[in-house]
């Protein structure tokens, strides 16, 4: 008979085998031969006796009346909708494992905060919007464009002169 089984039988008289059976004799032999088991058995018997001192109480006379009043006061249950049906597992989870549910909720909040968190960028050095730095290649392009516009204007004037004043 292993240790766990002996201890279980010491702690729980209901788990002891029927008196006179081979297993019961083996249990008694374990108690006789082991001072540790014997001491534990004696102390546990004392615990049973001590716990038996706490006798049951009778519920008060108004118990049922109070209960039925509470039943009458309690609102009639609304018909279960799809959301309440879907929420039942969560309700069970929160009821039976409040610590775990709170832990998971906290974990979700932290994860959400990490995902949505965007660190503030360092302020960029201030540059006046009115002044634009123009490189040499860019300034050449502008100059070319202005020349083209001027040339087109001159060309248009020549065309107008050639057509004569009556046409203008």
């Amino acid at each position, binding site marked *: 008979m292993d240790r766990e089984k002996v*201890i*279980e039988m010491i*702690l*729980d*008289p*209901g*788990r*002891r*085998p*029927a*008196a*006179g059976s081979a297993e*019961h*004799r083996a249990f*008694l032999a374990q*108690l006789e031969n082991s001072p540790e088991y014997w001491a*534990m*058995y*004696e*102390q*546990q*018997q*004392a*615990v*049973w*006796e*001590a*716990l038996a*001192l*706490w006798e*049951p*109480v*009778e*519920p*008060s006379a108004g*118990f*049922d009346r*109070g*209960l039925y009043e*509470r*039943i009458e006061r*309690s609102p009639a*249950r609304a018909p*279960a909708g799809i959301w309440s049906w879907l929420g039942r597992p969560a309700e069970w989870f929160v*009821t*039976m*494992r409040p610590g775990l549910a709170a832990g998971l909720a906290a974990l979700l909040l932290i994860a959400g905060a990490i995902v949505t968190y965007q660190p503030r960028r360092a302020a960029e050095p201030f540059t006046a919007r009115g002044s634009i730095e123009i490189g040499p290649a860019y300034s050449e392009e502008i100059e070319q464009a202005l020349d083209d516009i001027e040339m087109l204007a001159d060309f248009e004037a020549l065309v107008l002169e050639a057509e004569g004043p009556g046409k203008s």
Partner: protein
Amino acid sequence: MPKRVQNNVGAFAALEQDAQLMLQVKEGDAGSFELLLNKHRRPLVNYLTRMVQNQAVAEELAQEAFLRVYRARGDYEPSAKFTTWLFRIATHLALNALRDSKHQRREQSVDGAGPEGSPLQLADQRANREQQLVAESRLAVVRDAIARLPEKQRAAVLLHKYEALEYSQIADALGCSVSAVKSLLFRAYESLRVSLADLAASHKKRPTEGGNGS
């Protein structure tokens, strides 16, 4: 037939009867609810009284447990034992009440409203009177030893010792595994053997071949 086996046979019959009654409650039969109430009122009130050590609070919690059973009648399916279901609800309510009383105790301590350094006494006037009348110092030692157990160990011991629930039923009521229940009980009884050692002096009876020594 060993006692536990007899209990199991009785429990099976009870399961059938309780489940049947609850199904009738589901159909709107108020009389069946009354039968369930008559059967389970006393054990439930006693379990809760030993848990919170205050009969008035225990009766409120027991009423709340029965109220929840009544309100849930429409969804009842006889998948779990009725007793286990009822004690699961009651245990949940008791653990919450104990946590709330601890919370109140902390607040009183912070506010300075409560007596400094002394724990909030859960035992009510009636229990105190009972102790005085009976002059039972041994009972006070037992109550104190139970009260000092951590809440889950306390619930496990009370369901095991006084309600004679199986390990699997206790596991279901506490929302943990059977091995966790064994561990809870082992630690709880270990603590009780120490705290109740003074009451052990009178007990020196050896187990015999003719009985299981219980």
